[in-house]
């Protein structure tokens, strides 16, 4: 039997055999569960973006954690050399009594320090390398999500193929596979 005959014969034989022995069917209750599971996952996609990304992308959690740690570190380092407010107030009171620093008389020291801390925190967050990494990841993710699953153009031709066409195609496939190796 030639290869061409064998091909046709095998196709018919397989068709008959699969009629008697089809592919197995899914387990009982499959249809209801399958749809529910898929729709549950899709509804989860509708959840707020930050929650979805947090759960899907551990790097986001690490990035955000890193940024927070950096902010906290800057805040702690920035505050450590300063004295507690009460101590500063005591010292300035002494200086004030001694006639020095009269210009501090109307100053609300606690609110001024709080404002300074806020500025330090804001600058630290803006300058944090983690925040720019996070933005980069965001763009990268966006690009990945835009990656298209291309639809192939409609293909022409029929099931029939001449020996020459087949040989040419086999040669082409072999060459492609060799090139890949």
């Amino acid at each position, binding site marked *: 039997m030639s290869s061409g005959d064998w091909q046709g014969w095998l196709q018919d034989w397989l068709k008959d055999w699969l009629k008697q022995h089809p*592919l*197995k069917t*899914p387990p009982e209750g499959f249809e209801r569960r399958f749809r529910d599971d898929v729709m549950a996952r*899709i509804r989860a*996609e*509708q959840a707020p973006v930050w929650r979805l990304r947090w759960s899907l992308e551990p790097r986001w959690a690490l990035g955000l954690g890193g940024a927070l740690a950096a902010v906290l570190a800057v805040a702690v380092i920035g505050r450590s050399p300063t004295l507690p407010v009460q101590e500063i107030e005591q010292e300035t009171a002494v200086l004030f009594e001694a006639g020095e620093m009269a210009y501090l008389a109307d100053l609300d020291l606690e609110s001024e320090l709080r404002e300074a801390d806020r500025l330090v925190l804001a600058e630290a967050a803006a300058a944090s390398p983690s925040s720019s990494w996070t933005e980069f990841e965001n763009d990268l993710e966006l690009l990945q999500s835009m990656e*298209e*699953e291309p*639809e192939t153009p409609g293909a022409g031709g029929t099931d029939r193929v001449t020996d020459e066409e087949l040989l040419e195609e086999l040669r082409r496939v072999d060459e492609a596979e060799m090139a890949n190796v």
Partner: protein
Amino acid sequence: MAPDAEIIEAVLRGDTERYGELVERYQLAAWKLAFSFVGNAHDAQELAQDGFVQAYRRLRQFRGASRFSTWLYRIIANECKDFFRAKSRRPGALSLSVDNAEEDSVPFELADPAGDPRDAIDAREVAVRITRAVGRLPMNQRAAFVLRHLNGLSVEEVAEVMGRRPGTVKAHLFRAAEALRGQIEPFLKTEVRR
């Protein structure tokens, strides 16, 4: 029954729940496709569901150049390929390349209570041989064979799903049939003799 395009349009307008209609419509075919690749129900379900979720995420990119089902099958076939790539890093994990194929590990229905017991033995033997042969095929040949013969797609549909030209698909089918021939020919000769 609403056409696929109408449902897709509704989903894209924000009526997410209507995607369930597409899931219901194609879930069995999607499961069978994944099952014919991986050979076990659990992985098939997971891969088919992943395919639907991926298709939903990329729905805006679907332009209708092919049928939704073809596009979905393509996504699922790629999921299956990725699955095999991941599994191939763990030797012995390929369902379709088992050496001691038990009845549970062949993806075909074998039981025929009314049939001759000798036929049942033959059917199991053939099923094991087909399963082994398909499991040993390179991925392109396996995909072409599974889509064409086990899922009954036309060569043109297989070409669309695989993103190859029909001629290339025919070449892969030719090679797959040659590999299968070596596996099942001895058995077929005894069958002819009887």
